[in-house]
């Protein structure tokens, strides 16, 4: 029997025999059924969930027929970030992406497809862990506190990050005021209602009657939008021409009767 030993094992091989990336005190045993994650299941981790506080740990492992979710928590929440994989289609490289509740990258858990398959044998339920049984060592938790604005979330639930555009529409106008102020005005848009009611996809501008031209002279409406057509002078009694309304129409007529 050879007593040779590897002086400098590869990184992953070295971690197989240690609890790393978990703390030395971590038992890795679930609360309900006392199931053991196994010290060799994970080789490495890199956890940088935004806003993570002290004591990041695996808070639960939920096993379903086609989905296994490893949930991470910390001292303030049990749902800090999670990694999900399909036990029937485990990633070949054994890398599990951690995603936080807003869909942001929160780190990685490093294992192998073979080792991750052991969770398939666990009962189909949620297995919980206490903070001490699955605590990660501090060196794999990269502080990512949340100063400043980390995201803008809309009522629909979408989290906006990076370069965020605030755009006014339908009569809401957004304007920069000074160096650091965004002013919000709600003033309506006169033509918007007509725009959305157009039966086709294009807004067809209307051409309004603004003036009436007679003998080269153009006249517009009065202050109330009314235009008056008259038969010469109203008081003239020597004309047969009459302009009057009749049944909602404008009638131009002549009056008189037979002499004989």
């Amino acid at each position, binding site marked *: 029997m050879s007593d040779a030993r590897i002086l400098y094992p590869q990184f992953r091989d070295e971690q197989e025999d240690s609890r790393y990336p978990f703390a030395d005190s971590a038992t890795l045993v679930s609360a309900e059924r006392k199931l053991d994650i196994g010290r060799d299941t994970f080789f490495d981790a890199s956890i940088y969930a935004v806003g993570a506080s002290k004591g990041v740990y695996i808070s639960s492992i939920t096993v379903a027929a086609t989905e296994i979710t490893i949930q991470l928590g910390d001292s303030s929440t049990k749902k800090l970030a999670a990694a999900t994989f399909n036990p029937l289609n485990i990633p070949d490289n054994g890398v599990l992406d951690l995603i936080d509740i807003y869909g942001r990258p929160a780190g990685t858990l490093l294992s192998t497809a073979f080792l991750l398959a052991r969770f398939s044998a666990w009962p189909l339920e949620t297995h919980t862990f206490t903070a001490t049984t699955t605590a990660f060592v501090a060196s794999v938790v990269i502080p990512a506190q949340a100063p400043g604005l980390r995201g803008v979330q809309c009522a629909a639930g979408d989290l906006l990050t990076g370069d965020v555009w605030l755009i006014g529409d339908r009569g809401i106008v957004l304007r920069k005021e000074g160096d650091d102020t*965004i002013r919000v005005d709600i003033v309506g848009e006169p033509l918007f209602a007509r725009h959305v009611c157009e039966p086709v*996809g294009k807004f067809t501008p209307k051409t309004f009657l603004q003036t009436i031209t007679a003998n080269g002279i153009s006249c517009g409406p009065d202050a109330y939008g009314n235009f008056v057509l008259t038969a010469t002078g109203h008081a003239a009694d020597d004309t047969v021409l009459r302009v009057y309304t009749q049944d909602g129409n404008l009638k131009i007529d002549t009056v008189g009767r037979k002499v004989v």
Partner: protein
Amino acid sequence: MPRTGFLNDNEYRAYPFVHKTSYAGAALPLSAVVDAGIIMGIDSEFDHAAHSVWLSTIARVNNTFQFTFATDAPGADGLLLMFVCGANADEWTTITAESDPVNAVCDRPPVWEGFLVVGDLTALRAAVANNTTVTFPTKVRVLEPGRVQSLVKSYVHAINVGNYSRIMALPPEACQNEVPDTERTVIINAFCMQGDIRLKEGYNCRIKQTDRNNELSFTADVNSGDTDNTELCDHGGEIPLYPDEPFDATTGFYSGGPACNEVISTLNGVGGANVNIIAGTGIKITANAETHTVTIAPATNNLVGNCST
């Protein structure tokens, strides 16, 4: 019993690269790189499940070593990360590097950046002659996934402000027949606002801040917010979308078109979408739609007929 340190261990193993039983391409002395860490920036579009970082080349130029890393993250396409150190650098020398930003506007951060720790470079000096470059195949010397941190979607870099272009009463002449409903343009009002940004109530606007759940709610409320209506009334209830936006000189409207009192809405008090002008006895009315002309003339024949009867 004394134990060797972490960096010392790494001089004799593949770390920080993923260990494989064999590597395609050129050999890399294990002692050359003993640690590394990469931060993929907010513009990198990096996804741990699909992308990785690998050592692409080592060049020895003018008595320096240039370690160049590549990635297949879409946002870092064509952007390499080069760490430079002296060819005789001490063990455990730490080098930092950052890529260019994706563009130069709005004070953008590097697409990716990182650090590299070199070990004993004796073997590397023997393997790479001066003024030569060793190239490693794509995705062969891949960094351990745990050495890569992604900042994608992790923070708000800047706020930009704009408004959808207003609906014009009369579109520009060239666009009379092309006013698309679905492709409205955004008019930029402010670009790249950073730092502490305030939101201010303007006309008819009420902003409610709820600290308990970090919520801002915006409500339309008549006469809330700014009550100085001077700017609003100067332009018929419209306000500019950007400084110096042109308006109709006659009406003051930014959206153009006639004012209500410029439109003939009734004829002799008769209104409606259409007003019918009816010819009575002795009157003949003709209309020409092309010339927008209504001709009202006496119907002489009719008058003669009446008089002779």
